[in-house]
């Protein structure tokens, strides 16, 4: 009877092993092989890893990816938290806000890319027309700056609602008595936020940061549809680089090695941020 929970977990474990472990192990095997179309795979050891680590394009894509994820986090987390705090706590406004916020989340990634591609088209797009009105020549196909901030704005538009929903659920769970006590102590709005809201949101903020970090690291469809990784390779992130290597370049072995390094980087950064946030939260009096 003591083993009963394991029996309940068994179907989920089997499903995970089929859907996650087997592909991962296959990728690990492929990363040590040279797989070219029409030829038998042969063992090449660590050659693929060395080639990837020495590839200038990989390092450039990794750098862009880190900068992009950093910008996503420092924008979406404060914005999402602010919007969640500004949302109504009761009444018909709650349902309306939740529905409006849910709309971007319901749109598939590639459709978001298509919507923003229409927005940015030089002939019919709203963005070039609007910027033209202000005297700025908006050119997503030739300006790195325009391409970057548009990809960033698209991600913020698509995913900030997720942060809002997570933070809103966390805010709703904070007991009203804490705010009443802060009011009795005549705490300023900033101090109430700093010492009541923020420490109590530590758990949900860690989840929001990790989700957005991992998702932003995996971004593929939106920039692929919007900019195709350009102009040049200025919006080529790690996922685009990997897919070009494996599918476009027919180098499955190198693509697999890139995937493993990519996977490791995501785990490493997520773990470091998780540890740092856990420590910061304890310092801020989250458990007090």
């Amino acid at each position, binding site marked *: 009877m003591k083993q009963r929970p394991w029996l309940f977990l068994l179907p989920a474990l089997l499903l995970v092993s089929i859907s996650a472990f087997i592909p991962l192990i*296959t990728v690990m*095997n492929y990363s*040590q*092989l040279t797989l070219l179309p029409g030829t038998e795979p042969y*063992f090449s050891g660590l050659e693929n*890893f060395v080639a990837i*680590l020495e590839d200038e394009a990989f390092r450039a894509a990794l750098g862009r990816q880190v900068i992009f994820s950093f910008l996503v986090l420092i924008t979406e987390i404060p914005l999402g938290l602010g919007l969640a705090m500004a949302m109504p706590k009761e009444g018909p406004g709650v349902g309306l806000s939740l529905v409006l916020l849910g709309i971007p989340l319901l749109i598939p990634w590639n459709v978001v890319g298509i919507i923003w591609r229409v927005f940015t088209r030089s002939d019919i797009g709203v963005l070039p027309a609007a910027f033209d009105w202000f005297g700025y020549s908006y050119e997503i196909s030739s300006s790195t700056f325009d391409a970057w901030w548009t990809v960033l704005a698209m991600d913020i538009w698509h995913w900030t609602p997720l942060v809002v929903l997570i933070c809103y659920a966390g805010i709703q769970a904070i007991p009203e008595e804490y705010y009443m006590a802060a009011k009795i102590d005549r705490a300023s709005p900033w101090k109430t936020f700093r010492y009541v809201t923020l420490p109590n949101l530590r758990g949900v903020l860690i989840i929001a940061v990790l989700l957005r970090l991992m998702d932003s690291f995996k971004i593929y469809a939106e920039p692929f549809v919007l900019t195709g990784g350009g102009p040049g390779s200025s919006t080529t992130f790690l996922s685009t680089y990997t897919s070009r290597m494996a599918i476009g370049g027919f180098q499955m072995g190198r693509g697999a090695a890139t995937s493993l390094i990519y996977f490791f980087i995501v785990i*490493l950064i997520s*773990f470091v941020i998780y*540890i740092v946030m856990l420590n910061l939260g304890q310092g801020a009096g989250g458990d007090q």
Partner: protein
Amino acid sequence: MLSLPPDWMNWTTSTFLFLGSILLLLIGLTIWDMKAPGWARQGLLPIETTRGDRFFMGLLMTGCIFCLWLYFVGPTAAWGVLVLGIVSIVGAINFF
């Protein structure tokens, strides 16, 4: 390459040994924890960690060492990564 089923997975000896080692280490940790339960404690890091946390950190450090070794030294003398990896895992479990 190993001839393990299914064929399309193209099993290699190194993957088999790597995963087998991780599995053995996990089984070893489980037995160790059953014999002598380890509690969360604070070591060199400013946070409390369990034995499993420290093992995971050791694995991550080994991954970093692997990448740095390949970049700076290359695939020659790759056994050096194994030695450094074992040292980092043992070090992490004892001191983190």
